[in-house]
């Protein structure tokens, strides 16, 4: 369908989502619930992927730097820069788009086709706000924590792999990850991930909310949610990088 149709309808949905909450207490409870369901349940996958990626980046860096002229602490330095700048925000969010995005789209899509959203509307509840706002807010709160954790675990993974494979010594690695450290890069990464948190939850909710038909369409919405949030994540990652770095 016409992309402008989707863009227009997406922003109209957002307009509904950010209306004044009808019952503050219920919203706070929902946000806490979503922090748990979006964030805490993603901890294992975040941990595993970050440790492995840190290790892999370290080994590749050590392999690429195979020259006596380059000091070995550069291995640690490279791992840190890749983790902080790109991996822990963009790549991690791409993976979360798969997990969280499909989850949200199918949850809301199933509610749509079984008339649960209609039931909310009939009760006089702003269903868009009630269902979507807590997810967006919860993700914006918890994603930065996941990203910081991922940075840390990535560096740990790099340390384990780097030292155990003999790519560099523990001293060189630790020296490397401290060298030329610029704190704003962490801030940059967190700003990116907040944007991505918004994209993943709002785009996936959009596709779920406007599901029509049956179980087949719920599957389709869920696929669309992942595809379009991933594309938008990459697009915005490019924009951020161009603006702040390149």
């Amino acid at each position: 369908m016409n992309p402008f149709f989707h863009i227009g309808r997406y922003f109209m949905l957002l307009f509904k989502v950010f209306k004044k909450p009808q019952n503050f207490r219920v919203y706070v409870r929902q946000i806490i619930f979503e922090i748990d369901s979006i964030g805490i349940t993603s901890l294992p996958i975040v941990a595993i992927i970050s440790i492995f990626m840190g290790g892999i980046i370290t080994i590749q860096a050590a392999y690429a730097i195979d020259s006596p002229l380059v000091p070995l602490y550069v291995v640690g330095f490279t791992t840190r820069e890749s983790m902080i700048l790109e991996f822990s925000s963009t790549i991690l969010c791409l993976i979360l788009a798969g997990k969280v995005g499909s989850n949200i789209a199918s949850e809301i899509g199933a509610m749509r086709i079984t008339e649960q959203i209609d039931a909310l509307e009939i009760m006089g509840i702003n269903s868009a706000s009630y269902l979507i706002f807590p997810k967006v807010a919860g993700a914006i709160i918890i994603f930065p924590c996941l990203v910081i954790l991922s940075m840390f675990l990535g560096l740990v993974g790099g340390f384990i792999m780097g030292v155990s494979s003999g790519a560099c010594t523990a001293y060189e690695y630790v020296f490397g990850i401290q060298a030329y450290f610029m704190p704003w890069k962490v801030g940059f990464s967190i700003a990116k991930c907040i944007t991505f948190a918004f994209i993943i939850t709002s785009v996936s909710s959009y596709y779920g909310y406007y599901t029509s038909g049956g179980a087949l369409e719920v599957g389709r919405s869920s696929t669309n949610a992942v595809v379009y949030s991933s594309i938008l994540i990459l697009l915005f990652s490019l924009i951020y990088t161009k603006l702040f770095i390149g």
Partner: protein
Amino acid sequence: MIAIKNINKSFGERQVVKNVSFEFTQGKTNLIIGESGCGKTTILKMMVGLHELNSGEILYDGQNFPLLNSDGKQEIRKKIGMLFQGGALFDSQTLEENVNFPLDMFTDLTKAEKLDRVNFCLQRVQLEGKNKLYPAELSGGMKKRAALARAIANNPKYLFCDEPNSGLDPKTSIIIDTLIKDITEEYNITTIIITHDMNSVMEIGENIMFVFKGENWWAGDKTKILNTDNKELFDFVFASEFMKTFFKK
């Protein structure tokens, strides 16, 4: 009282509801009957604003619902309890949380008061003690009853029931019908019930609209329905051999 005036609805090319007008009386059980696919659910969904109408008026105590802004619609909807044909219980919540939901959203009751109300509603639909079950753990008929409990939880002023007793055995059916009739009279609710169960019609049919192919074909009450000379209604009412043998003159 709710009045509908000349409402029309088409899905694409196909006109599903044609120029239907009717008045639903307060404190009475108003029935919409008709064969499957004739447009009953569509009429109900238009009345609560889930389907846009192509033309016509829907008056809630004089207020034209489709013309209200979203806040105005929400105000009326807070007074509506609706039982969907498919139940539409919230899958992620237990029975207790489902029934508690409207109370949580719109009342300032304490936890204990809400629990009392929830238990009272569950008991009226004969689901007492099932508080902690999830919708997936209920039978079809239990889902219907649970949905009814949720619909009446917040003392609605308008109650809409889409086939409240399809999927129930005759005995439970009558209990549910009587329950709806009782609360309708007790709290002076404007109740609208969709059904194609002749048992219910004879039980609680105080003000009946018979819909045929999207039109208001016949209106009356249960005493008139048996003596009808309207051919389509007659075919509908006396479709079963049982009705023929026992009621035909």
